[in-house]
């Protein structure tokens, strides 16, 4: 009996939704307006083209290496050379973005670094001399409906490595180690110790605020 009930309960909304979708589609077709240069309407543009290259939200693939225009190594710069993160990502305390550094920042050092027979550095010099922006590919890409503020997290005392991984030790090319999905964000929003440190008696209130959808959704 309970099995039947369960099937019915599942089947009813599924059937209803199928009917709704069929109706909806006929609605869209009947309503489909003429192409107009002033008012182009897209019936659906959410679906990515299967031939394109894609990055997955919410999935971490340890083998995924994103091909970058320049094979920049965080391990070398931040690890071996011990350059602080915020030397290049200067806006991490000021803005929602940590900021990918302008080419000028790279050239600050690389003007005096010998580029002979080092193809990656020659590429950098090429971009600089042509005055062209380096077309980096985003590794940590959040959906456009998400508001994320680096400033709030960095000034609260969240370490870069907590989200971006051990870039100093392991990453010749930046890789994503965190899923960046909502559950992963909320995990810290619920439990991160910096909330207690910063907000003291108001920590509970702050945690409640941090669970509000409008904290991250825009």
């Amino acid at each position: 009996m309970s099995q039947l009930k369960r099937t019915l309960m599942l089947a009813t909304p599924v059937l209803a939704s199928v009917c709704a979708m069929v109706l909806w589609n006929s609605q869209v077709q009947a309503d489909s307006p003429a192409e107009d240069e002033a008012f182009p309407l897209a019936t659906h543009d959410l679906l990515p083209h299967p031939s394109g290259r894609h990055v997955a939200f919410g999935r971490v693939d340890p083998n995924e290496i994103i091909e970058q225009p320049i094979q920049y190594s965080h391990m070398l710069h931040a690890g071996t050379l011990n350059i602080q993160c915020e030397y290049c990502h200067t806006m991490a305390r000021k803005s929602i973005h940590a900021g990918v550094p302008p080419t000028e920042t790279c050239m600050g050092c690389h003007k005096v670094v010998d580029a002979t027979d080092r193809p990656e550095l020659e590429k950098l010099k090429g971009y600089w001399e042509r005055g062209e922006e380096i077309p980096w590919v985003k590794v940590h890409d959040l959906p456009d409906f998400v508001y994320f503020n680096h400033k709030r997290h960095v000034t609260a005392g969240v370490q870069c490595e907590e989200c971006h991984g051990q870039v100093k030790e392991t990453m010749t090319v930046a890789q994503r180690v965190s899923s960046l999905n909502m559950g992963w964000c909320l995990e810290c929003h619920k439990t991160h110790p910096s909330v207690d440190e910063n907000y003291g008696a108001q920590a509970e209130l702050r945690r409640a605020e941090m669970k509000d959808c409008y904290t991250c959704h825009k």
Partner: protein
Amino acid sequence: MSIDRRDFLKALGVAGAATAAGCDYNSPVPIPAPLNFLEDPYVPYEKVLPYVVQDEQVVTGVRNHIATRCDECSAGCGVVASLREGRVTQVEGNAREPISGGNICAKGVAGIQATYSPDRFTGPRRAGQPTTWDEAIQTIGGALKGAVGGIAWLGRPRTGSLGALIGRVLGAGWGRIAMWEPLGPDALRAAVRALWGVENLPTWHLAAAHTVVSFGADFTASWLSPVEHSRGWADSRDPAKGGFVSRTVFVSQRLGSSGVLADVHLSPQLGAEVDVALALAKLVATKRSYTGPAASAFASVDPAAVATKSGISAERLEELAGWLAEHPSAILPGSATDSSDPTALATAVMILNEVCGNIGKTVRFGDEHRVAGFASTEQVRLLLEDCAAGKVKVLFIDDLDPVFNLPTGIDVAAALAKVETLVVFANEENESTVDGAWVLPPGTTVETWGDATARTGHYVVQQQAMRPLHDTRALGDILLGLAKVAGVPTRPPADPATELAVDPAAAVQPAAIMGPDVDAPDYKSWLVAWWRAEVWATHGQPGGDFDSWWVSTLKDGGFFPGVAEAPAPAIAPVAAPTVDGAPAGDGAYTLMVFAHPFLHDGRHANKPWAQEVPEPVSSYAWTTWAEIHPSTAEKLGLTKTDTVKVSANGAEIEVDWFPSKGIRPDVVAVVLGNGKKKGGRYTRYGANPMRLLTAATDRGGAMRFVTTKGSVAKTGKERTNLPYLGSLDQQGRYINYVVSKDDLGTGDKPGSILPHHHPPVDERLTKAGLNDMFPEPNHPTYRFAMAVDLNRCTGCGACMTACHSENNIPVVGPEQFAKSRYMGWIRLSRYWEGDGETPDVRFQPVMCQQCSHAPCEGVCPVLATYHNIDGLNAMIYNRCVGTRYCANNCPYTARRFNFHTYRWPDSFNLMLNPEVSTRDMGVMEKCTFCVQRTREIKDRYRDQGFTVTVPHEALDELTACAKACPADAMVFGNAKVPESTVARQFAEPRAYAMLGELNNKPGVRYLARINHIPSLAHHGGQGEDHGTGSHDPAKSGGDHH
């Protein structure tokens, strides 16, 4: 057994994918096989392009502000442009600039769309073909050399350094300059010149006026300085400001954008408005014992005869004269479209101002509108006649469209065809960018430097805020280039007065000729040199050091020393102005035209916001309509869905019609702005009523628009463009309240509207000693709330437009608009109530009411909408599945559904606000109280300390609508703080919650409008006096879409 919500959704997702795979979207673009996002959540890679060299002031992700200038009309407001990574995404008012007072009008907000218009010229063009700037400057400069005496300039009024440069390059014996404003104040200028011998126009300061009398002037929408007048008018009505509530009187044949604010409407016979003004002057002069020089003008006027002629009873005239004699007033003449003899009307009205003692008080000389030297329409007509006669070899047209803006009586196109070298400065195609012309795009205000001195003691600087998007060149730079090629003398003439003497009969206007060398390397250095010489030096070199003064001037958006109170000039004795010519023609109706509050004369027609935001009075969009009195409509047999044919002078246009109770039955008025034959892609709607008019000018040189009688007939065609608001009135319901002035400050609860209103349920329960079943939720820190003072609201539409700009609201276009799919988050409800002499028109901006106990929340099956910790009714777009239950359950119809993924040409994407998601098909959206702004300001204060909260003062004008509101009618804030402005407004006796009896506990309170109708309490409640009857449930519902 249990199925949790997640299982349910998964099942739905699978079902949805299966259905989608089998369907055909019938779309021209091949759609790939749908993906199941639960299993395969792949999206495209995005690139991130850092700067090569980053300006140290640019912090990516943080917006910069640049003070600059608004050039949408000639009022001279300053604005602040918001910049994100080098592109301007929004303009708002500049609080340091006194005219705008930090506010902005709808036209100003929409101005940004000119910059990102997809129809802009991408570079200079010669006879329709692309050319280079070098070729243009060399060829035109060469033509100038050989055309001395045959050079003319027809352009918009330019002041400041640009005006000086135009005068310097073209005025120095080279040619003639006609700077002209279509629908401009020609008549008022002629009147002021005749009466006081002053070339500039006085300014109206409405805040101190107990009675505001307008003879047709739409002072909150299009007349002289709308933002300033809106604020002044609202202050005069606000008992908290001056301790009085002003009365607004309109003496006009129709009620327009401002006319609908009238407490008293006196509708004179056509042509009799001049007599009414003089009769009032006579009556007031008797009461005030006025015997000054102006008395000669009305000595022979007989008020009783005027009453008969105008159709306004002697008692009404006497009553109005009593108000005018008793208290300070402000009387405004209509513009050229409001009278058959605008100069006579302006003269009579200014005499009335003099008699009422307003000159120097509410109507001031001193901080004048600087219009000296500008051309009248008559001078433009003469110039075009000379063009037609082949006397003009080189003609420059600067940001004007005379072919469209002048009636067909002047054949502008034929005149332009006779000009050898026609140079049009225009960013977009218009009817005057004729074939054969040089079209030089000068860039928009945010792309170029510039300035204006629209007022004495008021200098606005227009900073370049972003790099030009196209291959454009600033007007000043073009002129300097031409000056070099043509060999304009580099030094200013030693004695401009003699060297530049011109024939006063011709349309030659010597502008301010002084200025720096035309040797300046570029226009910016000319501008700086001009400011040094003409502003800094003439104001006693403030600060002692020009460079630091200049930096602070740029930060403030200009230099605003103001002027010392000047004694009023003496008025000259004048004869009574007589009215020339009555409207002629064989039709039964006198035709009037009027400026559209957003499109004005048509110059803003290619801005989709200006087109799509419903015109507040009629709620029409994307169309041209005729205002027709309901009794006339009945006679013509018009139904709601009919279109009408208006014909006169052998031409006819087909337009929609609007039943206006504020227009005379013998008058039909058609809105200007649409019906362009040539223009951008958004201008192809409606019709141009200028085609019906003849081109007569009056003795002051102003265009006489009201000269034509025409006929109106039903076309038999059904209209496709339906109004946004489905109903004209409240249908007997209690949505928008008024309270009588008499009830303010009397009784236990002064001015309270509650006797006429169902109190909120919780209040009744509390009184009965019961507990509310739905207690206010806990808001620990903030309860964001808004108060809208309907007594200050002018129904201008700035809030709606600002909301479009801030929240990436899509433009749906006329086809979808007609299906009631307008997406604006604020609906400006407008109710024409009552059947009295004066229509009781009430405006009410309605946005999401952010209820504490919201009907929409409980019905959302996916929890996409919920009440948040700050008191907001949150709406999470990516969670929404589009059931639309919420919209069905919202009693305020505040929610909008995306029936499509609305897109616009890609160029407009540059002005999207990155802090707000763009919404796709199938998602519900609504006002969020600008959550991105509250989030940002909380974040800013948290930088000072983790537990620092936002002080209530910082919130007052936070939202885009409250910031824009020219009348300061909207106040945002934290209602938890009793001292906050919003909490104090909530406590006002006039405050009420819309549909409060539903116990939704909204976060918006409206403050009832105050009117001058004697106490409603004595007449059995407002339903009978102002509603259209009792609360009839059968009539309710279906009011709005």
